[in-house]
């Protein structure tokens, strides 16, 4: 059974999610990446569309102009960590409940998720066609002056996913936990590899 979140997303639905859960989204999803975050948080300018209880996607799509609108060609996630500086304040200011992107986010965003009852989830990177097929319609575009990748695209999506919860409302952080393990394994792997290579090079 697919677990589907529908916008407007309730706090109860968000609180029930734990890291590693797989969910899908139906409803309103808007793209918002570097420039959008800077505009909302640093410049204090809000888009016309109310963001309360909807979802944002860290993504810069390929969009084709068609008669009376646009067609979504390809839309995969971009690196969420780039938005780490602003995400906590962004959540507090906008009421966004679900942040979708690539890779994890840091401790500051985890704090923001706890305080604003929101979660971060990842969509598999490089899978822009699968994501585009789950976009039913592009309903609008704000901030076109940012260019195609950075503009604020307003989409209606249906069962958009799979979304893997990476930060939940209890402060759990899947990628930050993974990183601790990766760094421990790296120390062992590096020493072993370097030792073997140095001794191999020394033999002539």
């Amino acid at each position, binding site marked *: 059974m697919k677990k589907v979140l529908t916008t407007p997303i309730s706090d109860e639905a968000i609180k029930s999610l734990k890291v590693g859960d797989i969910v899908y989204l139906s409803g309103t999803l808007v793209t918002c990446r570097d420039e959008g975050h800077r505009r909302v948080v640093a410049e204090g300018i809000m888009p016309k569309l109310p963001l309360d209880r909807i979802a944002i996607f860290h993504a810069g799509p*390929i969009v084709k102009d068609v008669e009376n609108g646009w067609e979504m*060609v390809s839309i*995969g996630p971009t690196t969420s960590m780039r938005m780490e500086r602003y995400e906590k304040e962004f959540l507090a200011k906008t009421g966004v409940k679900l942040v979708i992107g*690539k890779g994890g986010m840091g401790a500051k965003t985890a704090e923001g998720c706890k305080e604003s009852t929101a979660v971060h989830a990842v969509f*598999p990177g*490089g899978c*822009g066609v699968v994501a585009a097929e789950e976009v039913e319609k592009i309903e609008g575009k704000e901030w076109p002056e940012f260019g195609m990748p950075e503009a604020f695209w307003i989409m209606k999506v249906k069962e958009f996913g799979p979304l893997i919860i990476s930060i939940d409302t209890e402060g759990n952080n899947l990628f930050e936990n993974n990183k601790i393990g*990766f760094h421990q394994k790296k120390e062992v792997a590096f020493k072993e*590899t370097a030792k073997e290579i140095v001794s191999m*090079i020394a033999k002539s």
Partner: protein
Amino acid sequence: MATFGQTTKMVDVIGKFVDVVSKKLPDDVMAKLEELRVQEEAPLAKVIYDVMFDNIDKALTLNRPTCQDTGVIQFFVRSGAKFPLLGQLRGILREATIAATKSAPLRLNAVEVFDEVNTGTNVGTEVPFIEWEIVDDSSNVEIEVYQAGGGCSLPGRSIVLPPLAGYEGAMKFVFDTIVDWGINACPPLVVGVGIGTCSNSAALLSKKAMLRPIGTSHPHPKAAAMEKKIEEGLNAIGLGPQGISGKNSVMAVHVEGMAHHPSVLGVGITVGCWANRHGVIRFDENLNYEIISHKGVNL
């Protein structure tokens, strides 16, 4: 003497090839991804592989770029000195980039330097990026196109180490870079390592190493062994697809090198994402062409 008809033909062929490369992964990448998918056991990692393969299929059937980040278009030209259109090739590659940008369509990724404004055409100052190599005296040319997204360009770096840091220092640089930066570069990665004599020679060799077909080894037995050992070491860390953790970290590790100054060891790293969009096409002097990287593709 090149004619207008020849120039137009080459723009057309390369434009169509750049379009195809954005939509269909090359044979070497497909074979390796299938191998890694079968090996994977972690549940979340398996879900990600399923979506990756679904995406590969959908990109082909819907005729769309496999990843929305179609990169800054880069060409690696390996030419004979007598290829008749050598003098026109820069203009041809620029026109082909513009054509593919419209036909695919590709994302508009050329932001003009200093003014920091998107050019809206995917070309700009020194873009498409072209690396030129005169390889022999023949009249043939081999052109490799590479479409690197921002995510997998970000880990790229080079360093010049003092001799006492040696190969141990080089390995530390590789392992630190991949673990610190590789997660967001869309693993499983292709890792290119260049051993050079300065920062740019090391960086260029790392790019060449990354572009070498997966499944090939360096001809020098020590370099081949080095590739294998680094690959095993990085896989033991288990980044998994998208850094979600899993069986492997990389599709391949390739090393290229050159003689270097006794006082320095340059080390470069270039990383390619799982959607490794590179393609090789060869032309003879009459512009008959052969696609090397994607068997069975007709333009």
